[in-house]
């Protein structure tokens, strides 16, 4: 079990997860790198981990959420003008990504994760079930709830 074959194949998936949470490409890349390094430092545990993908996702998600919190604090601490400029630049640059980020942020767990795995990663119900260690029926139910919630959100907004 080495880095290349065991954890590196998850890099793009983790990157999209981090990007959907932070909305910033540079931050997302740093988060994926940090995730991989943390996983590498605990490589003696790999043979005991049943679901490496799920484990990496958990590390990455926590790091991304921490990063988002830090960014929000920095934004609040900045002068109103700086904050407004930064915010406007981000929104302008990553408008579509921000949209999906805001939508996904309204979903409770594990609906958000199932929505991401299905719609962003394009996984089958079976693969999602295996990744999250739940049944395929549960995947269908959670996905249905997630999309219904998104529809309500979009309709109410318009």
């Amino acid at each position, binding site marked *: 079990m*080495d*880095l290349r074959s065991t954890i*590196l194949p998850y*890099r*793009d998936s983790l*990157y*999209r997860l981090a*990007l*959907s949470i932070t909305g910033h*490409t540079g931050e997302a*890349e740093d988060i*994926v*790198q940090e995730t*991989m*390094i943390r996983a*590498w430092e605990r490589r003696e545990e790999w043979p005991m981990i049943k679901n490496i993908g799920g484990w990496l996702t958990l590390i990455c998600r926590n790091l991304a959420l921490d990063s988002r919190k830090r960014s929000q604090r920095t934004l609040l601490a900045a002068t109103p003008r700086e904050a407004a400029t930064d915010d406007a630049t981000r929104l302008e640059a990553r408008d*579509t*990504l921000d*949209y*999906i980020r805001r*939508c996904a942020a309204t979903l409770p767990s594990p609906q958000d994760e199932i929505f991401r795995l*299905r*719609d*962003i*990663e*394009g996984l*089958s119900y079976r693969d999602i079930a295996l990744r999250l260690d739940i049944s395929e029926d549960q995947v*269908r*139910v959670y*996905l*249905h709830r997630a*999309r*219904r919630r*998104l*529809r309500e959100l*979009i*309709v109410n907004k*318009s």
Partner: protein
Amino acid sequence: MDYKYIEQLIDRYFEGETTLEEEHILRDFFSQGQVPQHLEIWQPLFQSVASLAAEHLDEHFDRRLLERVGETHVTAQRITLQRRLQPLFKAAAFVAFAIVIGSAIEHATSDTVTHEATPTAPAIVQDELDPDEATPLDIRSAEVAEKADSVKLLQN
């Protein structure tokens, strides 16, 4: 234009009943420029999903990561045609060398056998000549005979 099929797909999508292929059709449909007004409401969702799904890390990420964890980054090496054929050249050179050495040994062996079997005329002439009594003409004749013998050997 009839958008019944797309409308049905949208309904089924929100019910969680679409296949991956049908979801791909929806993303493709909303990624195009012209979307009817009554369906525009769904465009940001499908566009943003398609946009995020296309995001990936660049090729430098792996190298930077492997450097940080202390592993050597193995890159594919470009091998030239000359380098690829090098073992063949080596084998050919070895075969040529073996042939040269083999024929040299063969010549040396056959030379010894010839000398032992039929003593040559110049040898007899040389044996019969007394160095003190031999005239320059005799010595010259012996040299010519020796050279003729060498040529004969080479021809064999």
